[in-house]
């Protein structure tokens, strides 16, 4: 079992990191859309009110305005919930930010079904598909608090548009403070030769738990934390497929267009390999986060089942 000694809400880590970045770099400006308590952007807003712009429930305006800030030398962070920060203003992101290759950082919290009781309209399960479809964007799904801090810092320091996807609920901490996130690099957390689990976000902890369970059955899994969806570490995916011959992807996202689709695309071109997908296949509903993860098939148990299944299909 993974020692769940600590959990942290990635959104809270984000708010604190943003505040720290704001202290170090006066060019950072923060834009919010009337959800600044929930995203923790208000930590920045309290200390730097002149660099903080609440635009109300008007995400389209926020995205294009951020591009204007970026074109004038600022480093704007747009913050809101994933469902309001991707699908709703997608055309503004596409034209004002992506086609402009603007130095805008979109950091969205409350992604996936673990937003919980608010129900399906608030549960963003399409955002990774949307955001990875934009040619100039970098897309990151941190696994926990320490990685969130690293990813937000990397986004601030790296020119170009970023999408960072965070959660509402507290997430098990799997990294220590010395963790070093690298854009475009997979992180190998376990090694094994029977199958590889490639996960992102809150499913990384589930993948580790599954790997530990499976080891007791004599199944040894490689586990890759694929926090960087774009750019994607194609070499690590190909190498894992060659070494283990079976791949399971795990993500809190619709099965179409997210991590699983990206990995399958790489394998189709490089090393066709049996795959199983742990992902959502329909819209969610109201409920507690853990109830929803269980009902919709996104727990360590479901990852283990997928590994056993994919191993049956190995050639």
């Amino acid at each position, binding site marked *: 079992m993974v020692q769940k000694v600590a959990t942290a809400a990635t959104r809270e880590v984000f708010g604190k990191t943003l505040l720290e970045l704001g202290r170090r770099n006066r060019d950072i*400006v923060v834009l919010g859309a009337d959800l600044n308590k929930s995203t923790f952007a208000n930590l920045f807003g309290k200390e730097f009110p*002149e*660099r903080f*712009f609440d*635009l*109300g429930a*008007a995400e*389209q*305006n*926020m*995205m*294009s*305005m*951020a*591009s*204007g*800030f*970026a*074109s*004038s*030398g*600022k480093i*704007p962070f747009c913050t809101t919930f994933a469902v309001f920060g991707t699908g709703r203003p997608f*055309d*503004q992101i*596409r*034209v*004002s930010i992506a*086609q*402009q290759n603007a130095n805008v950082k979109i950091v969205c919290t409350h992604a996936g079904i673990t937003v919980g009781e608010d129900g399906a309209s608030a549960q963003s399960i399409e955002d990774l598909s949307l955001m990875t479809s934009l040619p100039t964007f970098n897309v990151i799904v941190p696994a926990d608090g320490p990685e969130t801090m690293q990813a937000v810092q990397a986004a601030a320091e790296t020119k170009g548009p970023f999408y960072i996807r965070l959660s509402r609920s507290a997430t098990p901490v799997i990294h220590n403070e010395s963790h070093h996130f690298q854009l475009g690099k997979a992180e190998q957390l376990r090694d094994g030769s029977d199958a590889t689990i490639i996960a992102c976000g809150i499913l990384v902890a589930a993948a580790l738990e599954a790997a530990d369970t499976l080891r007791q059955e004599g199944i040894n899994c490689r586990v890759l934390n694929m926090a960087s969806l774009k750019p994607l570490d194609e070499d690590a995916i190909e190498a894992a497929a060659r070494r283990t011959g079976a791949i399971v992807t795990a993500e809190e996202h619709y099965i179409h267009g997210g991590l699983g689709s990206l990995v399958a695309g790489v394998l189709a071109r490089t090393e066709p390999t049996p795959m199983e997908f742990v992902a959502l296949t329909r819209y969610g509903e109201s409920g507690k986060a853990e109830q929803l993860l269980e009902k919709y098939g996104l727990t360590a148990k479901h990852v283990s089942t997928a590994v056993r299944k994919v191993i049956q299909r190995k050639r």
Partner: protein
Amino acid sequence: MIQQRGAPMPTNGSNAPNNAELERLRGIARQMRRDIVLMTSEANSGHPGGSLSAVEILAALYFHFLKHDPENPSWPDRDRFIMSKGHASPVIYSALARSGYFPVEELMTYRKLNSRLQGHPKHETPGVEVSSGSLGQGLSFGIGCALSARLDNKLYRTYVLLGDGECDEGQVWEAAMSAAHYKVDNLTAYVDRNGIQNDRFTSQVMELEPLSDKWRAFGWQVFEIDGHDLAQVIDATNQANAVRGKPAVIIARTVKGKGVSFMENNPDFHGRAANKEELPVALKELENG
């Protein structure tokens, strides 16, 4: 080299342009109309109608007001011009070419493969601030530029040109609300009120009136002018630039296709170029106009 040092900040109407300046600008406007008709005809596509209606606004901005440096398009202190109604790209390409951002001959590559002059503006083109063409986004972008200037204590000004049909877009009003909320007074917006959008007259597609009242209700200072009268464009711009504590918009009443009789007020020429038979007629009219 910094071209076109802007007119000093006005305090009243006393710095009206003299006749020689107006005549100079009229000459540039004539040249721009020729460019627009020629480049769209050469491309056999594009949007001449809404380009011709905006000629005087861009002539006044690029050749009278803007502090900019065509040899250094990303000069941080430049005034910004945001072409929100991106389909009218021929008018900004003409203004940029005539300002010296790229050779005038390049206008004839408009809409062709490997050209820097895309059907709708892209920021890679020297002098183009932002990609546009999907309507409604330019005012928001301009507010970001203007608020950056405020944070940096810079004196540059941001100008945004919107179409009237573009005001159908909800984002325009999100932006309008936020500009008033943040008291953005270092930005001047123009609405090219030519009365025609893609399919038909704006009054048939989606009633915009009372348009000035809408902007006023959103907290803006509103000026209404004849958008083809250069003296009025300049005077209103001076007045708008002097407004403090709130944003200012100039509703410029214009004629779609202005200067070419068969294009004028004709929805057909929103998105169609003069054909081979029409081109010489148009050019002749512009010469005589």
